[in-house]
């Protein structure tokens, strides 16, 4: 009993002590800056992933072999190697190959998560396109639409409805995966939190807060995904 009472001391000292929380809150701007970088990388990365994913998803349903093979190769490469290696490749290997080339760390983050999630989104898009009946493509091309035109005006708008829930899940994963930037000093939320925590050992409160901020970014999207899924099922 006395031991338990003695442990109230965790408020004065230890990993979660009040002074550590105070230090965190008086430096909260550090986390805000990091969160802004994370949002920037996530939104541009998502734009890149959507563009790549749509293009490669369409290629993988093409009637021609070459784009299909390219799409297959892209998807398998990015899905079956760790994101971390891809980011390290851009960060470490590219400057050796092209010494003159300078890529800002944030751009590396955007490219990294964009290309990685582009592969997953390509698979989502492919499944969406294949869920639309063959007759739609036939009707479109019989009216003189090109393959790309048929995709743009007829197939993809219909596939979009099917694809929206899994796409939202991909956005959630993409936000979380921007945290690999921390390893290459990317200035993102994870990096900002970790470097602040490491300076004075304020790991406990900082990691909790960083996790909470990620949660606040992702949870609304996850809810949206669920809502969309229910709507798709109802339709």
């Amino acid at each position, binding site marked *: 009993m006395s031991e338990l009472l003695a442990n109230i001391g965790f408020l004065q000292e230890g990993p979660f002590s009040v002074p550590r929380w105070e230090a965190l809150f008086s430096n909260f701007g550090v986390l805000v800056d990091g969160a802004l970088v994370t949002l920037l990388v996530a939104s541009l990365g998502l734009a890149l992933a959507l563009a790549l994913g749509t293009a490669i998803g369409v290629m993988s349903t093409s009637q021609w072999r070459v784009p299909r093979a390219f799409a297959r190769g892209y998807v398998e490469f990015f899905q079956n190697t760790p994101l971390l290696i891809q980011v390290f490749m851009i960060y470490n290997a590219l400057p050796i190959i092209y010494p003159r080339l300078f890529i800002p760390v944030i751009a590396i983050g955007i490219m990294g998560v964009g290309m990685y999630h582009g592969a997953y989104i390509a698979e989502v898009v492919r499944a969406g396109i294949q869920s639309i009946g063959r*007759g*739609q493509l036939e*009707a*479109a091309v019989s*009216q003189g639409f*090109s393959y790309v035109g048929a995709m743009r005006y007829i197939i993809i*708008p219909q596939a979009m*409805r099917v694809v929206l829930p899994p796409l939202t899940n991909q956005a959630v994963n993409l936000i979380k995966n921007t945290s690999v930037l921390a390893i290459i000093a990317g200035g993102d939320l994870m990096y900002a939190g970790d470097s602040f925590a490491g300076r004075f050992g304020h790991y406990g409160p900082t990691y909790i807060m960083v996790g909470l901020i990620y949660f606040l970014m992702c949870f609304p999207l996850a809810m949206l995904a669920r809502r969309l899924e229910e709507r798709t099922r109802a339709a």
Partner: protein
Amino acid sequence: MIKLVDVSKHFGSHEALKHVNLEVPTGQKLVIIGPSGSGKSTLIRCINMLEKPSSGQVIVDGVDLTALRAPVAKVRQQVAMVFQQFNLYPHKTVLENITLAPIVVCGVSRDEATESAYKYLDRVGLREKADKYPAQLSGGQQQRVAIARALNMHPKIMLFDEPTSALDPEMIQEVLEVIIDLAHGGITMVVVTHEMGFAKEAADRVIFLDDGLILEDGTPEHFFENPQHDRTKLFLSKILR
């Protein structure tokens, strides 16, 4: 207008069409009849290259569609198709279904496409459904919209691939009436159908297809009253009773 020269089509080891030769002059109303699996759908789909023939030539409006780099999409604008399952665009309204390809593919102005769309909606009796979505229409109404969509391309040729086979019996007549009305005009028509009444009333010419071969080729009178092959007689005895 349409010319098939020695056209064959295989699906794996199955031969759907066997060296078919067929010429359809401008303005002719050709009806293709045959048991299921006879290759009649494959034949009509070869005309607009929805099926690519394994060998032979398909020449439409003077253009060899089987040639390398043939302008297939260009020719398809002139060859409208009406499908068994309608294949309307479910995410578009009736009006959008009818105007989309003229605007996007043919470059017609929106006003012009809309004006002619209403003209054809009147013709199929569905002007008041212009703002509905396909799912809000009955099967017969959907097929009439599909016909209006085809007409708004101002095609030289219309292909009908079993246009009434997916319809409930009470809706077949409303669709057939529209097609018969069209048959009185000058357009070239190819119709795959099981509706013998339609063939008698609207066709200039009937061909009977069996097992990938054209067995009969002549006027409706010839086909119904004086068929040459036992296979045709057997088919007719089953269908006409």
